[in-house]
């Protein structure tokens, strides 16, 4: 096979993959700017009226701010826990490290409906089911493996001598952690934290089980609206989700890209 032909096949495959991956997003964004009254792609004309509508919809707005709160709780819980667990996992020969590795695979194996029901029962028993913060904690629990992964990947490339050097400089264990270990794993912490934020923001199934009419989060609210009547404002909400995800990626590139640059690795 000649080189130009190889290159052509390569780019055709790449183009196909990009198209398939971005098609849902393109359709949703396209449908959200329609000037008609039904969801349609290609859109009929162009208008931002559906964005205007969601900007005035109180239920969607409240659900949006609740989702933000849930995500912040999730980040607040998962970052300290995930950071310490990630460092410990990559650093020490833990008893039960195997069990931990299995735990890290759980998000891919246990159906969310199972963990959701489990948590619904437990939270119900604890009588905290109507509150918003347990939803954030639940999101932290089910997604924790992602931040543990991200931090332990950073910690694995950490030079152990850096911590010995800090001790040699007179830093005790706590000072060593804050001055040397934590800055070194910061890229992993930032990556994991943003990931946790986005995952909690978009978490649907577990939120559905743990929320009631007073505490619906944005994905649940969207689902409720779909069940009544499908209008282009839902496409506009979905576009907001896409924008949040893109913002997270941009932030990651800025923060971690910068961090990696500073580490000259």
């Amino acid at each position, binding site marked *: 096979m000649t080189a130009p032909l190889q290159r052509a096949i390569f780019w055709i495959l790449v183009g196909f993959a990009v198209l398939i991956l971005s098609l849902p997003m393109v359709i949703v964004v396209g449908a959200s700017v329609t000037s008609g009254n039904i969801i349609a792609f290609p859109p009929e004309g162009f208008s931002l009226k559906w964005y205007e509508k969601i900007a005035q919809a109180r239920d969607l707005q409240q659900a949006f701010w609740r989702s933000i709160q849930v995500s912040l709780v999730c980040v607040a819980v998962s970052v300290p826990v995930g950071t310490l667990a990630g460092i410990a996992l990559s650093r020490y020969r833990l008893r039960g490290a195997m069990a931990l590795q299995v735990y890290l695979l759980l998000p891919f194996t246990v159906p969310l409906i199972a963990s959701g029901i489990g948590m619904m029962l437990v939270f119900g028993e604890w009588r905290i089911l109507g509150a918003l913060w347990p939803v954030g904690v639940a999101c932290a629990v089910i997604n924790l493996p992602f931040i543990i992964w991200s931090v332990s990947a950073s910690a694995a490339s950490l030079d152990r001598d850096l911590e010995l050097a800090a*001790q040699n400089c*007179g830093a005790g264990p706590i000072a060593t952690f804050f001055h040397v270990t934590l800055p070194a794993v910061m890229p992993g912490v930032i990556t994991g934290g943003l990931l946790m934020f986005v995952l909690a923001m978009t978490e649907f199934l577990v939120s559905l089980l743990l929320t009631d009419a007073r505490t619906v989060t944005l994905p649940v609210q969207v689902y409720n609206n779909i069940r009544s009547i499908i209008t282009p404002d839902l496409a506009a909400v979905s576009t907001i989700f896409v924008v949040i995800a893109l913002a997270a990626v941009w932030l990651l590139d800025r923060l971690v890209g910068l961090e990696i640059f500073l580490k000259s690795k």
Partner: protein
Amino acid sequence: MEETALTVRVHDVSMDFGSGTKAVDSARFDLETGRFLTVLGPSGSGKTTLLHMIAGFLKPTAGEITINGQPVDALPPHRRSIGMVFQKLALFPHMTAAENVAFPLKMRRWNPKGIPARVSDFLDLVKLGDYRDRRIHELSGGQQQRVAIARALVFEPELLLLDEPLAALDRKLREEMQLEFRRIQKELGVTTINVTHDQREALVVSDEIIVMDGGKIQQKATPVALYQQPANDFVAGFVGVSTFLDGSATEGGVEIQGTRCAGTHMTDIAAGTPVRGGIRAEQIRLGRSAQAVADCDTRLTGHVSDMIFEGERLLYVLNCPALPGVDIQVYYHDPDAFDLFEIGSEVHFGWRARDLRIFRAAR
């Protein structure tokens, strides 16, 4: 017996990782204040383990280490007054050069007002005054070395430890930094323990050298004494280039497969005992005729089997029918006659009895 000038005493210290052999086996030595000691040994000899025990990163499984008379085994590393330059330097990548140097002062709670001036002094000492705000990755290898040494010395440690920090540098920079370490050490008068596998570095920079092998200290001596009077065949082989002759002891020499070689017994050895004789490459005389080796106590003939050009000298490898199976290594220095002996040509060689050192065949 009170010795006021003693900084470090390592007293029968052992480290057993539980793998069968001890990483460090009953190491014992004293180091006086202001001296520069090098621990020399091949990789796996236990020298870095020994250093880590002194720094406090490892706890000896037996024995005791005292610094300025105080046992330190119960002190965690950050409570010991020891500066260390690590093999891979271990500079903090998220800090500037000046922040790295200031770090030990902050951690050791120096008066914050005095810190900037002191950091400047030490950056000047290592000739990095103009680079204080550079990040570590913006500095060259030699400059990073200098930051590491400033960081290790800035808080006036009682002891400086060097864990092969020069091993990764190219040869020219390494030799430059060896002299630099020596200069700074003399200037500050700080007691220093340096670890290396580079025998040349050990000879150049040290007041005293300890040779380690297999976790055991083989010899402690000044560079000159170590070179001239190696305690055993390991030291003789590790420091300098030597040819070894295995045979049995005779009066005033060694007999190897019927050939009697004149040599000096380094200890009291009875005739007939299995021994190993070592002779340095620069102590073998080499010539085209028997006349060139007339004043040698042992005179032999052989053939040149290989010739290695090393720049300032040639290394000839000789084979000798009287000493079968031995590659005799000879340095040849005459700059006017570098291609004197061709490969395959017959040569006369020999040595004086005092230069063939005969040790009891150990292991």
